[in-house]
């Protein structure tokens, strides 16, 4: 059973490499970050201010010393201070990460609730009306980029019909109803493409599974249609669907950027875009690092789950 420790060690190694890449990337930019930060609109910055900022950022020390102290800081959970207002980057992230996770979970819930039954029904009704209509709808839903969906939803439901506000965020504790109304549009926007992909994967997996011998045996035993489809077909078909879906959720960690921007939703990716626009290096570094660590951890979790569900992997 050396598979598990080896897999965990690889993940830790990857996280270390990611932290180093992010650290180095920022130091390898042509030009001095301090000078870049201070020069706005082509005006050469004051040399005194530049050297002060260099000291503040620790850029005047040897790169190896910077790297070691940076790693040590990161390990203790300290991601440095924002250059914009001096606030703690870790605090900003702990404030905003749950909002993004809530958004992703809401979208994932919608996608699973609609996509999996949809895929099952389409597969059992192969070449029927529902199959054709839903397959075309899914192809269409996958072709429209999220920011287009979001913008069109705002135009329709906020500007024309005035059903919901165009965007924003209210904490759950302050006003639960408004919180959920504001969550609904961005969640639906993300869910549209996600549902389509869950639908397509489920449909393909079920079609594949239906041809298997054990399913024929289950029919031959005289089991009810419901039992064959749910216990024998769907249960096996969902294995690959769950894996791909979980990996898909990982890419959403960075992929909510556009949706949060469209709906003015103050999540983690919104923080990233603000930081990018303000060239706030510590904040960009912190957010990218946290998201990448979550991403690696999610990949590990998927692998572990898969190993639990399918013993062949463990012994491979």
């Amino acid at each position, binding site marked *: 059973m050396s598979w598990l420790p080896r897999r965990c060690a690889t993940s830790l190694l990857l996280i270390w490499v990611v932290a180093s890449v992010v650290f180095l990337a920022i130091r390898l*930019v042509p030009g001095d970050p301090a000078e870049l930060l201070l020069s706005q609109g082509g005006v050469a910055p004051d040399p005194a201010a530049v050297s002060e900022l260099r000291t503040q950022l620790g850029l005047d020390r040897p790169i190896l010393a910077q790297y070691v102290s940076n790693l040590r800081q990161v390990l203790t959970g300290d991601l440095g201070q924002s250059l914009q207002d001096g606030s703690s980057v870790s605090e900003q992230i702990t404030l905003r990460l749950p909002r993004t996770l809530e958004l992703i979970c809401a979208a994932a819930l919608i996608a699973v609730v609609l996509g999996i039954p949809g895929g099952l029904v389409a597969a059992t009704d192969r070449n029927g009306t529902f199959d054709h209509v839903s397959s075309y709808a899914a192809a269409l839903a996958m*072709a429209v980029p999220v920011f287009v969906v979001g913008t*069109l939803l705002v135009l329709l439901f906020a500007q024309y019909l005035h059903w919901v506000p165009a965007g924003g965020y209210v904490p759950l504790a302050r006003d639960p109803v408004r919180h959920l109304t504001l969550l609904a549009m961005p969640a639906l926007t993300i869910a549209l493409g996600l549902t389509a992909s869950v639908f397509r994967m489920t449909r393909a997996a079920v079609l594949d599974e239906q041809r298997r011998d054990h399913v024929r045996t289950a029919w031959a035993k005289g089991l009810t249609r419901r039992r064959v489809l749910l216990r024998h077909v769907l249960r096996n078909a969902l294995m690959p669907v769950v894996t791909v879906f979980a990996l898909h959720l990982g890419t959403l960690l960075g992929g909510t950027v556009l949706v949060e921007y469209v709906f003015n939703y103050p999540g983690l990716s919104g923080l990233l875009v603000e930081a990018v626009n303000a060239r706030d290096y510590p904040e960009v570094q912190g957010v990218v690092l946290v998201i990448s660590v979550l991403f690696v951890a999610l990949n590990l979790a998927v692998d572990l789950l898969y190993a639990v569900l399918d013993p062949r992997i463990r012994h491979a």
Partner: protein
Amino acid sequence: MRFVRRGPAIAVAAIASLAIAVPYLPLANPLHLDIAHRLAGPSWAHPLGQDEFGRDVLTRLLWGARTSLAVAGGSALLACVGGVLLGLVGGFWRGVPEFLALRGMDVVLCFPPLLLALLVVTLIGPGAATLIPVLAVLYLPGFVRVTYAGVLTVCAQDYVEAARAVGARPGRIMLRTILPNVAGPVLVQVSLAAASAVVLESGLSFLGLGVVPPAPSWGLMIGSARATMVQAPLLLLWPCAALSLTILVMNALCDALRDWVGGQS
């Protein structure tokens, strides 16, 4: 022998040739400002109307296709060349090159795609010139893995052994013997990368971090039309429709190519 389904291929070819022909078509200047007629509706001179600076929307839409496809095609081809070389070398020689190629790609895959693009754009600054290499890096792992897997299968075949026995150099074996046999999956990967690059390019441009204004790009057009969406909803709908339609036909081409390659082997 099966053929690629014709519909999607023709549609993509049509969009691509339109994008290539744009500079030679009798169109208005995409950068010509006409503030007096800002947000004007469709007319004979401007069939799709004018934008918030009075620029002709039809012209900008067509030039936008050129930008999107240039970025998509450029990054997909760059990733293809780099990824195929890495995959070939890694799969053929194994050992250290294999380790470097595959583990290097694992590092790239640690970042959600949009995030990596944002990081690089922060560091280097936006623009089509940065966008192409950045997107190419994002799609590199796909090409490396597909090529590597193909090379491992092909290398075990007798004809590769035969080429070795005849005394062919490694370079010749890789390019003349192995490469043609892994071309199918690589081609599918090119179509997937290009379709995905159109989505990413438009998204980054929408955020103002991709193509730099005033260059026409669908993402930028959608982004700037948001401010006037109530007065001029059409201004928003044209680029949305163009972008979605392009992605739709490109996705269809990906599916068709995949079926075709799958049916061949």
